[in-house]
């Protein structure tokens, strides 16, 4: 305790700038982590607002509020913002805050680069969101921007979309490099790789995935740019190109990207479950191996997104089998979590509630994923609301729930205060119920034949769409409660000890709460 007091004093001396400059110039991993998290929360609400527009339009059949072209811009930008603006920065924020604390490092290895990688993000998203207000509007070709809809047939603002993706990509790559260097070079003495917390492990693998695929995305958008503006024919059959090749290259990035958004979630859940089970994580080694094999498999399954483009039988079979195979390591993870809970000493604090909801709901998303892998059935599921239901179960009740769980888990460590538990529990139950009202009926309308990305639908889908929209509004509103809980916790509340949760293990619980500005200036010894 004394030690950390000293550190705190030290940090205040250390620290010159104040006000906005503090945040602009900061190279401190905790500040940058906070910036990332705050930014992603803002993006969550902007992207969420777009989802509300989508759901309001789809509340009833017919065109009510927005015209179809704007609707398409909403679905596109909603997707882009949620993927690149909400989920990914949130995980990077958590990584910034927690990885140095977890491995006993004084800061991230490349603090200046850390600053840049955050501060270019607001520019990227200003460009993207700004394009919505320009003549012609923003991108309207879906977040997957399939050529030639995004090349020959897109509006002139496509260049803005391309540049914003470039910037997001550069930001992600810098973030990933930083995390890898930190993990490899700054571990405290005794912190061997196989002793690292799983959150660090999953992030390490995620960072490698990012370095492998974000440049491919950058290449893809560059090709879109040159096809549209400089007369190349990568994706244009006229010049010997191939629109289907776009999809191959895109999904070569896109599928690992899916795991980029879920592996850190596995890490968070693997941290929370043992804490509130008061029992060591079951099968630590197999967890690590499962993560590595998921990352590996993610590179050889991409074409399962494009079975309907027409493929030889052999290719269809290969991608079906390899995709099905992914459920094995994923299953191992689920089994390990349940085995961790088995014969534990369970308590149900808010992070644990979200973690349990994650296990159940992510598994539902996993099952629908397995169904989607079955090629013949995929012809019926593809591009319907069944797919929408699937990836929202994986990304909202998966990635987003894990982020919320992580925030509730570490928030007392960041602020030094306990959040309002009653409100947080209300937030949990409201979210849990509304998210299922929102996404579960999407399975039904999808199976019944409702295509995705349509601004208007046939009458037989009307009832379920109304329910879905109501669930959507409820889920959206519930998240205001989350913001309230977080803000309230920053402002004050019951003081918490260094080890906030009695079952918690790891170096981060050895530093004071709130965590001092500089921690582990002297590396701790790990036994």
């Amino acid at each position, binding site marked *: 305790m004394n030690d950390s007091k000293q550190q705190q004093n030290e940090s205040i001396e250390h620290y010159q700038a104040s006000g906005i400059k503090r945040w602009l110039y900061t190279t401190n991993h905790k500040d940058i982590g906070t910036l990332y998290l705050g930014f992603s929360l803002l993006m969550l609400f902007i992207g969420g607002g777009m989802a509300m527009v989508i759901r309001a339009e789809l509340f009833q*059949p*017919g*065109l009510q509020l927005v*015209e179809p072209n704007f609707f398409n811009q909403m679905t596109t930008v909603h997707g882009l913002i949620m993927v690149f603006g909400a989920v990914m920065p949130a995980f990077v924020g958590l990584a910034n805050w927690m990885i140095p604390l977890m491995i006993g490092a004084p800061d991230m290895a490349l603090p200046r680069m850390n600053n840049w990688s955050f501060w270019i993000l607001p520019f990227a998203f200003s460009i993207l969101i700004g394009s919505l207000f320009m*003549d*012609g*509007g923003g991108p309207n*070709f879906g977040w997957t921007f*399939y050529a*030639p*809809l995004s090349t*020959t*047939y897109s509006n002139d603002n496509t260049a803005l979309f391309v540049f914003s993706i470039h910037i997001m990509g550069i930001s992600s790559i810098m973030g990933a490099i930083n995390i890898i260097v930190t993990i490899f070079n700054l571990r405290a003495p005794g912190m061997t790789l196989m002793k690292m917390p799983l959150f660090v492990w999953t992030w390490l693998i995620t960072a490698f995935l990012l370095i492998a695929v974000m440049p491919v995305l950058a290449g893809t958008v560059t090709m879109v740019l040159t096809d549209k503006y400089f007369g190349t024919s990568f994706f244009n*059959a006229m010049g010997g190109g191939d*629109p*289907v090749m776009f999809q191959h290259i895109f999904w070569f990035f896109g599928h690992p990207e899916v795991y980029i958004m879920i592996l850190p979630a596995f890490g968070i859940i693997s941290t929370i479950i043992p804490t509130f*089970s*008061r029992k060591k994580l*079951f*099968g*630590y080694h*197999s967890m690590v191996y499962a993560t590595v094999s998921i990352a590996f498999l993610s590179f050889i399954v991409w074409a399962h997104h494009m079975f*309907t*483009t*027409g493929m030889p*039988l052999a290719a269809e*079979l290969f991608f*079906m*089998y390899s995709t*099905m195979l992914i459920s094995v390591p994923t*299953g*191992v993870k689920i*089994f390990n979590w349940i085995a961790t*809970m*088995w*014969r*534990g*000493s*369970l*308590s149900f604090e808010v992070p644990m509630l979200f973690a349990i909801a994650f*296990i159940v709901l992510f598994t539902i998303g996993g*099952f629908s994923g397995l169904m989607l892998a*079955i090629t*013949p*059935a995929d*012809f*019926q599921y*593809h*591009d319907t609301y069944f797919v929408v239901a699937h990836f929202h179960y994986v990304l909202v009740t998966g990635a987003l729930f894990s982020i919320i769980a992580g925030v509730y888990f570490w928030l007392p460590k960041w602020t030094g205060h306990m959040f309002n538990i009653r409100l947080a529990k209300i937030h949990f139950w409201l979210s849990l119920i509304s998210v*299922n009202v929102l996404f579960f009926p999407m399975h*039904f*309308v999808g199976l*019944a*034949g409702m*295509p*995705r990305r*349509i*601004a208007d639908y046939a*009458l*037989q889908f009307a009832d379920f769409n109304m329910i879905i929209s109501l669930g959507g509004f409820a889920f959206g509103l519930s998240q205001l409660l989350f913001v309230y809980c977080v803000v309230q916790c920053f402002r004050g509340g019951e003081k918490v000890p260094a080890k906030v949760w009695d079952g918690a293990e790891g170096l981060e619980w050895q530093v004071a709460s709130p965590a001092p500005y500089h921690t582990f200036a002297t590396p701790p010894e790990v036994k």
Partner: protein
Amino acid sequence: MTLVRAVAYLIFFLPEIAFANSAINMRQGVTDISEDVYQLHMTIFIICCVIALLVFSVMFWSIVNHRKSKGAKAAQFHESTKVEILWTAIPVLILIAMAIPATQTLIRMEDPSKSDLTIKVTGSQWKWHYQYLTYGQQTLDLGFYSIISTPQSQITNQQQKSETYLLEVDKPLVIPTGKKVRFLFTSDDVIHAWWIPDFAVKKDAVPGFINEAWTNVNIEGIYRGQCAELCGKSHAFMPIVVDVRSPEQFEQWLIEQQQLASQQAQQEDALKDVSFNMDELMALGKDVYEANCSVCHQSTGQGLPGLFPSLKDSPITSGDVQQHIDIVLHGKPGSAMQAFSKQLSSKQLAAVITYERNAWGLNSGDVVQPRDVQVNEPSADRPVKASQPTLAIEIPTEKKSTNNTASQDPLVDLDKSQLMQLGEQAYLENCAMCHQASGLGLTGAFPALKGSAMIEGPIEQHIELVLNGKELTAMMAFKDKLSAATIAAIITYERNAWGRSGEVIQASDVNNQIKGAE
């Protein structure tokens, strides 16, 4: 509380099992393949449910019984190689069990054997085009667009929505039952996807490439689907309707369609010499505009800034007529502006162009007639390059001689059999399109000549009509198109064919009448 949650999940899953045939589950469909796919879907779904039930039971058991609040003490175990191998191996076995039926179904789906009917399906923003290629050994020449028929007023909620809202088209695809139908997919612009849930067929239409899928439908009926790949603004508004009929009815339909096509061609041809007045064109033009153009260019003609250009203040609508016609007929490559030459009749095209030049206060006064539009339409009747002698297409000499005036003709009298021979050929070339070779015309469209007052009546009227046509009808003036000798031959033929025996007309008679008129 937790038990309640477990039950709640079961309730969520139950409707899927209980109401397998209602609108919350995949459709069983009407083909063997769709039935297979449905069974596969249900099998995998139930396996998933069983696994979920087992796994979550364990978890909820633990949640209920291993609570700290109940005084549970945490056990110390944290690994077991045996268990871990087990729960890696068992899922692999389950997956193999799933993969076997999936592989079998997939192999049945990818069957490259011969098909009975081949149809080319072309997607474009935002409609489908169907081209019938072959049926058995027969080569077909039948193609048409299939466009959403839901009125704009239903979409904008000004009118009660019909039961098939957004799932209805002006002309459905018709296919027979019990035949293997091969679809070849391609696209004119962006990627579309053709999907009929009841056939379990969904395939992308990729510009520059062809894709194929096939179906063999067991049950007659009307089946509906939609475009499944985001293709731009009106992605939600390009439905697919397939009308499946018995092979006999299908063949009947094919014959009807071919007749209809030839009639339409004739009507188009007939319009060449009809002039419509401004009001008529403006009224029709407004309807055509609302149905085809207003979705992008808006009813106000002002377009959507940055997306769809305004017509109201555009050089196209106020400038050169020819350019305007050209862009409407052929579209603008690389933009959403489609080519309308094959979608609209020449009358509709003329009307809509006239409308665009005179609406919204433009009042240019330009009147575009169907013939103006037809001139621009491509005609393939031109000779193949001389160096390649294999396939010269012959051009009827008479058509070329438009500048010949009757007075320059050598006025040689011919005998009746010569005139009849010449007349028959000229009739088939110039008149039979409308009046038919049988002289019976087409009911409702073109009058019969056989037994008509004109043929029975005075020769002068007959000559007069052929020379100068009949205003406001499809009957054109042949005075400048055909020589006096040919006109004489035709009239002779008309008065002596189809079981009648009548007068013989000579070129001089025709010439006299022309001179008399002058």
